[in-house]
């Protein structure tokens, strides 16, 4: 079984070599002329007045939290989908029951404005 993963290992290594090599070459041949203005973060010509290291809208968190929850939901779907035909009606029923609370959760989130941007 594990033999199947050789390709993955290879491509990971190759991928790193490619990406790393490109960066490396660039570092080698790229010019280097630094001065203060160039090093400043780009703010359309203004000097930076607000640090980006601050709190952002809560929506982002809501999305991330929702994502985590629904990602878990999704991983329960994958193996189920793959064996669905073997499970038959029973499997469909089980998954239906599984989905109800999540659907309720989604509707709830939706209606409560948790999905509004």
């Amino acid at each position: 079984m594990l033999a199947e993963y050789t390709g993955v290992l290879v491509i990971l290594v190759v991928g790193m070599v490619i990406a790393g090599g490109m960066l490396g070459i660039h570092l080698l041949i790229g010019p280097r002329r630094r001065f203060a203005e160039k090093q400043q973060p780009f703010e359309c010509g203004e000097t930076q007045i607000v640090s980006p290291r601050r709190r952002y809208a809560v929506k982002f968190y809501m999305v991330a939290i929702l994502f985590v929850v629904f990602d878990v939901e999704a991983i329960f779907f994958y193996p189920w989908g793959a064996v669905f035909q073997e499970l038959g009606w029973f499997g469909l029923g089980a998954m239906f029951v599984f989905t109800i609370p999540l659907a309720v959760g989604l509707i709830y989130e939706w209606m409560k404005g948790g999905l509004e941007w």
Partner: protein
Amino acid sequence: MTVEAILFYVFGILAVVSALGMVLNIRNTVASAMSLVVTMVSLGAIYLLLEAYLVAVIQIMVYGGAIVVLFLFVVMLLNLSTDEFPPGKQRVAKLAVVIVGVAILAQVLVALGQAPLLVAQPEAVPEGFGGYRQLGLSLYTDYVLLVEMVSLLLLAAIVGALILAKRKID
């Protein structure tokens, strides 16, 4: 030593190092989170080596891809990138926890040394072990109750997160 064993040690060491990096890096929380990603991915690789295929991919998807992302979000968005907090009180309690933790570790390691688990180690696992097919079939027959319960748990998480995090609840 087989290739698998070598890979196991590589990933094991990677996991430990990155875990230590996560815990010990007190200057940069984002880096801590990224270290955690490395740990998670290494663990995923070890799961693969242990022929827990579905678990491995789910580990990477959920732990590596979702949970730590959430951490990272919070770290970045709340600007918790550095945390040079003043040294804390309660040294004793913490020391106690540390000692107990290390003691348990030692205990387990010694126990492992004394009573090797090798006795029952099977050379090969049954056909299809750890794949999505076997796991899927068991999950939705033998363990179907747990699956339903997980969905309740997720419902609770959704509701709870919304209640707590949303600025205004109507």
